[in-house]
């Protein structure tokens, strides 16, 4: 095992250990992903009584292959998340991404809501020492699930100005994709609707938003790449 670990690269495991049985293609899951996948942290084990948790959020659809559900306990006076429980239907990186996010939120006795809102998919991917490119959308969903739960909390406590954080408009309410997500996808090299959908799942469950999405893609392509 030691041989596989490259110390210069933050202990990132370089050898592929998952092989696609149909195509023979292989991809790498890091030790971190594997550890959270096989020993997920902070799972909700029994369905909670009403009011046990302060807020709940869900994103994804079973047909798409990923569903994440998040339960939060919040200390309103301190504006802090003090507990984070979850359940996820999805592949290894989806499960690992929710697990590591729950650890990130709860590891130091909780996290201020403002800080939690700033967690980006990239932060989650980094904490997992990376996930395969085409699996990034799985971790993209876990921060959306957290945000969905926080939005529910804001609505419940009348803090409507804090709903849909970062001043970014939600484009697709099913997967909680925002304008900022579209911009990020374009910056990440997605220039067509299909490519953006592969990264964000925008419009798959809510096709009404596709015209707006296409317009945004054109806008951000022009803004960042002049094309």
């Amino acid at each position, binding site marked *: 095992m030691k041989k596989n670990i490259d110390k210069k690269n933050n202990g990132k495991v370089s050898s592929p250990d998952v092989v696609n*049985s149909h195509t023979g293609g292989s991809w790498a899951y890091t030790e971190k992903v594997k550890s959270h996948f096989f020993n997920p942290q902070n799972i909700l084990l029994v369905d909670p009584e009403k009011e046990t948790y302060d807020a709940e959020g869900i994103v994804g659809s*079973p*047909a*798409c292959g990923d*569903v994440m559900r998040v339960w939060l306990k919040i200390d309103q006076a301190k504006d802090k998340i003090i507990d984070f429980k979850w*359940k*996820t239907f999805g*592949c290894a990186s989806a499960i690992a991404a929710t697990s590591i996010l729950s650890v990130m939120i709860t590891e130091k006795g909780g996290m201020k809501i403002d800080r939690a809102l700033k967690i980006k998919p990239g932060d989650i991917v980094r904490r997992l020492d990376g996930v395969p490119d085409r699996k990034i959308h799985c971790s993209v969903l876990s921060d959306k699930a957290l945000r969905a739960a926080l939005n529910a909390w804001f609505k419940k406590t009348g803090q409507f100005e804090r709903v849909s954080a970062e001043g970014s408009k939600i484009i697709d309410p099913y997967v909680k994709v925002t304008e900022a997500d579209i911009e990020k996808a374009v910056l990440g090299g997605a220039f067509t609707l299909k490519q953006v*959908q*592969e990264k964000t799942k925008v419009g798959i469950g809510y096709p009404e938003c596709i015209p707006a999405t296409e317009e945004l893609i054109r806008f951000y392509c022009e803004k960042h790449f002049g094309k």
Partner: protein
Amino acid sequence: MLKKKIYLDYASTTPLDKKVFMAMKPYFFEKFGNPGNLYHSGRVAKKAIDIARRKMEKIINCDPGEIIFNASATEADNLAILGIARANKKFGNKIIISNIEHKGIHSSARLLVDEDFDVVEIPVGSNGLISPGKISKALDKKTILVSVTYADSETGTVQPIEKISKVIKKFRAGKGAPPYFHTDASQAFSYLDSDVKKLGVDAMTISAHKIYGPKGIAALYIRKGIAMTPVIIGGGQQNNLRSGTQNVPAIVGFAESAVITKRMRKKEYLRLKKLRDILEKGIFRMVPKVVLNGHPQNRLPNFLNVSFLDIEGEAALLYFDNANVEVSTGSACDSETLEPSRVLLALGRSYEHVHGSIRFSLGRHTTAEEIRQVLRIIPGIIKKLRVISPLDLKLNESKKISRPEAFAGGRAPHFLRNKK
């Protein structure tokens, strides 16, 4: 975790038989010649191919010169579809395939659409079977080729090939002209009689690495007298139908593996069916919310494809792998394209079901003890993943949740929409 690895993915590939390897070995070293050469080394190689070819002709009961060696079943399928269609365009432009064909056939047929061919996909019934009546109705004067898999590679459902060939022969009414009938027997060959005369097929694909032979070699049987244009062109080997120096050791190994497979066929059929049934019954007894994919009876004896509801297949596959058991899944997450299994969707399974599908395929080295061990670990793995999962799908509600047309928002997901 189990100490010894248990391989239950024989439908994906099989280990090389040692006897096959020994038969191949000389052709890598001292008998390395090119069969296209006239001098002694060339003649030795050519003779080896001729002997191998004769062995295979005998096994599938075809006439001399009716087998073309290819580098893979995919290539053989490509040659069958593209080659027969292109050479017989003067007779018509319609091709009929089932909607559960292997991608080697499906993609070839799609390619032909750009060449003004008309491709008709016959959907399987909910039991996974192609109805010969539906084929009969689809046949018309323009039809030149029909291709239906002998047994598909995901559920192992066995299609009524003899009945379909009768329908086609009746339509031809004694004339030798098209429509011709091709079948891919890659999965079926190990366990079912693959006599081309009994089956009544005009072309048939078989693959070596599914029958304990080497990878990189397959064969296309094509009945004499059927016009076919090559896909791979060059030096004119194999009657100009498949150029390229023949892979002599692989061809020798292929024939050897076919001989052994045929010899073991009946015994292995009964032995594996018994083990598969133990596995199937065990899973259904111990695990709630499981759906069988494929035909309950008309199925290859080594196939078991089930959907464990509420869990995702790639996650399950990796938990199995972690427990030293190797299986496969039709989940989108496990595919390069992130597309769920076309075959399972064709059977009318909802996306949720397909995402949770696991294929167990048994083979020559599977033992009763292995099946017992696998059965011991399955309930725990499924239970653990269900604890993590937020879903609680109902068995009988499956159809209501999401067929493509019932997908949230009323539109199919991106991977379906952009297909057309």
